[in-house]
C-alpha cells in the first residue's frame, strides 16, 4: 500500500510532496500510520470538500492506493476535518524529515 501526499499553496507556493510505501516503513511507523488513517476514517472522507479558497492557506491532497480500493482526498487547510489533521501533520513532518 502506498500513500501519496502533496501540500500546495501557502505564501511561498512551494509544494511539499511525499510518497510512502508501507513496505519501507518500520513496524512501529506502519502501525502509527495505519492508526492515523483509521482515525481519519480516510476511505469514507469525501474526495473534495467545497469551501471558498482562502488567501495563502495550504491545500492538501492525499492518495492511498494498493489496498482494497484507491481513494484520494483533496481539502483546503481551513476545511480539513479535525479527525484528518493528525494524519496531515504526520505526513508534513515525514516530508520534512525526508528533505
Amino acid at each position, binding site marked *: 500500500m502506498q500513500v501519496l501526499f502533496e501540500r500546495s*499553496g*501557502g505564501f511561498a507556493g512551494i509544494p511539499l510532496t511525499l510518497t510512502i510505501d508501507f513496505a519501507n516503513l518500520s513496524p512501529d511507523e506502519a502501525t502509527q500510520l495505519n492508526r492515523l488513517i483509521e482515525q481519519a476514517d480516510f476511505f469514507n472522507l469525501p474526495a473534495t470538500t467545497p469551501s471558498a479558497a482562502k488567501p*495563502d492557506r495550504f491545500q492538501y491532497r492525499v492518495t492511498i492506493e494498493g489496498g482494497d480500493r484507491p481513494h484520494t482526498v483533496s481539502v483546503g487547510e481551513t476545511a480539513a476535518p479535525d479527525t484528518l489533521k493528525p494524519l496531515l501533520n504526520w505526513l508534513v513532518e515525514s516530508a520534512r524529515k525526508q*528533505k
Partner: protein
Amino acid sequence: MLHQRLQEWIHPQKQIQRRCICCILPPQMLDNLIQYGDEKNREWALTTLRISERFRGKRRAVGNVSFAISPGQKRRTIYDAKTSTSLPGVLVRGEGDPPSADQAVNEAYDGAGATYDLFRDVYERNSVDDRGLRLDATVHYGLRYENAFWDGNQMIYGDGDGQLFNRFTLAIDVIAHELAHGVNQHEADLDYQNEPGALNESFADVFGTLVKQRSLNQTVDQADWLIGVGILTSRVQGQALRSLKAPGTAYDDRILGKDPQPSHYANRYQGTSDDGGVHINSGIANHAFYLAAMAIGGYAWEKAGRIWYFALRDILRSKSTFQDAANATILIAEQLYGSHSDEQKAVRSAWQQVGVI
C-alpha cells in the same frame, strides 16, 4: 417614488460607481436615495457618497444616517500565539507601546505601519477597509509553520521550519502582501482561484513590493523587485520566493525545486494544485506591473501603483481575469494621465509583452 432619471442613474449601479474614478452625482440625488431608496439603492448611494466625500476630504451626515468612519489613525495590535493555533493569542504590543524584546513582534508592528502609511499617504485610503480598520497581527502561529496569511480579519505569521524557511515577518513585503489581501477583500474581492486568484495574488505582491520600495526610498531602477528576501534560509539556493522582474528565477534548489512562475500568458499553469496556480500564474501579472513601472520610471508607487490601486478599487470584480485587469489599468491610465499618454502606452505595452492582450 424615485424620479425616472434617478432610476436610470441607479440601474447600471456598479458600472457607474466603478467605471469613473471621480463620479460627480448631484448630492441631493444621493441624499434622496439614502432617505427614500430601497436597501440596495441606499447602500450604493452611501458607498458613492463615501467615495466622493473622501475626494472632498470631509465628512457629513445625511438625514439620520451618519458615517461610522473612524478617524484616520493607525491602530496596530500584535498578539503572540506561542506556537499554538488559537487566535488571536496573547496581546504583546499595542499602538504606541515601546518595542518588544521579540523581533517578530516588532517586525509585524513596523511592517503593518509602513503598509498603512503607503495606503494613507499615497492613495488616501483609511486602512485596509478604508474605514479605519484596526490592524491586528498574530506572530508565532503554529509549530514550525512555514507560512503567513490573512484570515479575513487579521494577519497571521508562522516561524518557519527553521531548516528551509525563516520566520515570515522577516520580509516587509510579506507583511504588506497580507494586508493587501485585506484591501482586495474590501474592494474587487477577487476570487481566490484560477485567474482571478492569480490576480489577487499579484495585487498582493505588487503592493508588497511597493511598501518595501517606499520604505527604502527606491526608484524602479534601484529596487530588487523580489518578494520575500530573507525568508529562505542560507541552506537554500535562492534569493527570494518570487521575482517580479524575472518570474521563475527566484530560487532553484535541490530540495525545494525551481521557482515555477511563468512571465508569459502562453506558459500559464492550468492544473488544480495551489487553488489553480494562484502563486504560480501571479508571475504573469506581476511581470506586467514590473514592465509598466519600469517604462514609467521614478517611484513605482506614485504612478504605476496608483493605476493598479484604482483598478482594484474601482473596476475589477470577483471574477475578473487578466484581460479585465489589462483593460482596467489601461482605462485608468487614460483617465489619470490622458489618452495616448506615455503612462497609458507603458501599461498597454506591458500587458502585450506578457501575452495577455
